């Protein structure tokens, strides 16, 4: 009789990296649909450009590293990175922005650190931040929602904006977060009546709230499929709500915005469910994920309220990526049978 000699785990779910990544990609669909509905096909152009570049870079690097190209392309991790970067970029930005961004994400942030599973920073966020600090003007021009600007750019206009020298300024509007941050003169309630982006929406600006809701739905799908755990997203959203409530001061002209605005505008929901749940660059234990998420929530608010950039999720995620190894070290779970957890920094007793 042959004895089974395979080591644990013995029960496997049959999930491969590729399957997980495809479900993550599928979960972004509601949010992406909402973005397309309000901001037009620029979103899809960004995603297409990012995906093409990312897959090309992944193939070239894998070829250079002497690894099987097809095998690594089929884990779809490069595709998800490109997808998230494409969603984060402003629609109708010049064609070279997505190309540079996803090349940086795949080559510098992922493969220079050793490739899939070894990158200390979230590649999509590295690509985004490199673009944001390199080309701040192009990266902070968001088109307004279609209703506010009397119709999103048509397909012809979209291609002229992306590939030609058509100027996007005619379509751009300040984002809800920018409007509230730059406001220093009127009460928030008055601001919500004045600004078309805010008064046509419900709580956090037309278009933005719908897209955020879409990403929330996608995130709940991932939770339901047990691809992500609740710890990091809940910690981030609770911390962000709490601190924005603390500084809300019931809506004076110097207020930094209500919790609803911070939760349902900008990249909060995308970040909470799709970025900080990255199993590679985030913390690994459940307690660690709580701390990681709370840190991202706190930093997001601090940078949004008192920083110079219009949104902060990318910076907050990268800063917490720095902290993740330290968090992991202090949140190692106790192994069964041991009195206390063994940390990497513990001094070995002689």
């Amino acid at each position: 009789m042959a004895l089974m000699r395979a080591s644990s785990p013995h029960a496997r779910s049959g999930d491969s990296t590729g399957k997980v990544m495809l479900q993550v990609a599928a979960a972004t669909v509601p949010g992406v649909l909402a973005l397309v509905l309000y901001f037009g096909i620029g979103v899809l152009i960004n995603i297409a450009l990012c995906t093409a570049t990312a897959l090309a870079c992944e193939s070239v690097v894998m070829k250079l590293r002497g690894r099987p190209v097809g095998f690594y392309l089929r884990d779809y991790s490069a595709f998800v990175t490109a997808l998230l970067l494409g969603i984060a970029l402003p629609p109708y930005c010049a064609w070279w922005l997505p190309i540079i961004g996803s090349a940086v994400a795949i080559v510098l942030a992922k493969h220079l650190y050793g490739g899939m599973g070894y990158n200390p920073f979230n590649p999509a966020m590295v690509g985004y931040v490199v673009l944001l600090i390199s080309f701040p003007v192009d990266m902070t021009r968001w088109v307004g929602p279609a209703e506010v600007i009397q119709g999103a750019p048509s397909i012809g206009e979209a291609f002229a904006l992306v590939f030609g020298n058509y100027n996007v300024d005619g379509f751009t509007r300040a984002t809800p977060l920018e409007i509230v941050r730059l406001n220093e003169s009127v009460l928030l309630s008055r601001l919500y009546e004045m600004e078309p982006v805010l008064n046509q929406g419900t709580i956090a600006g037309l278009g933005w709230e719908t897209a955020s809701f879409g990403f929330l739905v996608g995130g709940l799908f991932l939770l339901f499929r047990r691809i992500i755990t609740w710890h990091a997203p809940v910690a981030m959203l609770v911390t962000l709500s709490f601190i924005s409530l603390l500084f809300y001061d019931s809506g004076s002209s110097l207020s930094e915005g209500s919790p609803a605005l911070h939760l349902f505008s900008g990249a909060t929901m995308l970040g909470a469910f799709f970025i900080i749940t990255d199993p590679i660059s985030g913390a690994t234990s459940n307690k660690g994920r709580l701390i990681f998420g709370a840190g991202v929530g706190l930093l997001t608010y601090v940078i949004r309220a008192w920083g110079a950039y219009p949104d902060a999720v990318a910076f907050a995620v990268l800063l917490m990526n720095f902290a993740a190894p330290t968090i992991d070290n202090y949140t190692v779970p106790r192994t069964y049978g041991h009195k206390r957890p063994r940390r990497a920094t513990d001094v070995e007793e002689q």
Partner: protein
Amino acid sequence: MTAPYGEITRNGLWNNNPALVQLLGLCPLLAVTGSVVNAIGLGLATTGVLTCSNLAVSLVRRQMPDTVRLPVSVMIIATFVTCVELLMKAFTYELYLVLGIFIPLIVTNCAILGRADAFASKNPVLPSLVDGFMMGAGFTAVLITIGAVREILGQGTLFADMDLLLGPVAKDWAIPVLGADYPGFLVAVLPPGAFLVAGLLIAAKNAIDAGIERRRSQRVRIVTGTKRVRVTGKIT
């Protein structure tokens, strides 16, 4: 005994390059290499100080008691840095303003103290002089390479503002490599760009070394029938 000048030169420029191998003096290396002119300015200043301090330290090496070896070296280096600073103030004032604190900070450049302590305090005058100059040249070469890459990527130009260093002759030397309407890749000018370019240069050097090593090991055939019984380490 004749000093091995060829080896000193190879060490300074390549094998033991202060910037790429010893990783010394990284602070100025990363801080002022935003353009070629800054890189050349700081490189020349560092080379001058390094050559002179190596010469001086080597001259007094027999008089230096071991207990005050480092303070003496630092005093000598500081003296030459002050000379260079005054010279730059006199002849290239605008460049002096651009480089700012990094000229006086040459005193704390570990590459200089390192060479004074590791080479000049143990070797005769002439080899020390050559070593200082070659180490400085190696350092300058890396500075200029990083400066050129960052200037091209960051501003799309090469040799812009060379008149700060060379006078009005070099007024029009700026070459718009990437065209006049290049938007500028800001990250290359910022500190992360310096780290990235320096890291890639180190990787390139290691790749070249590995290539040379591979070719050499292919050429050298191991002589069969060696009589050594026990051999550890690399056999060539």
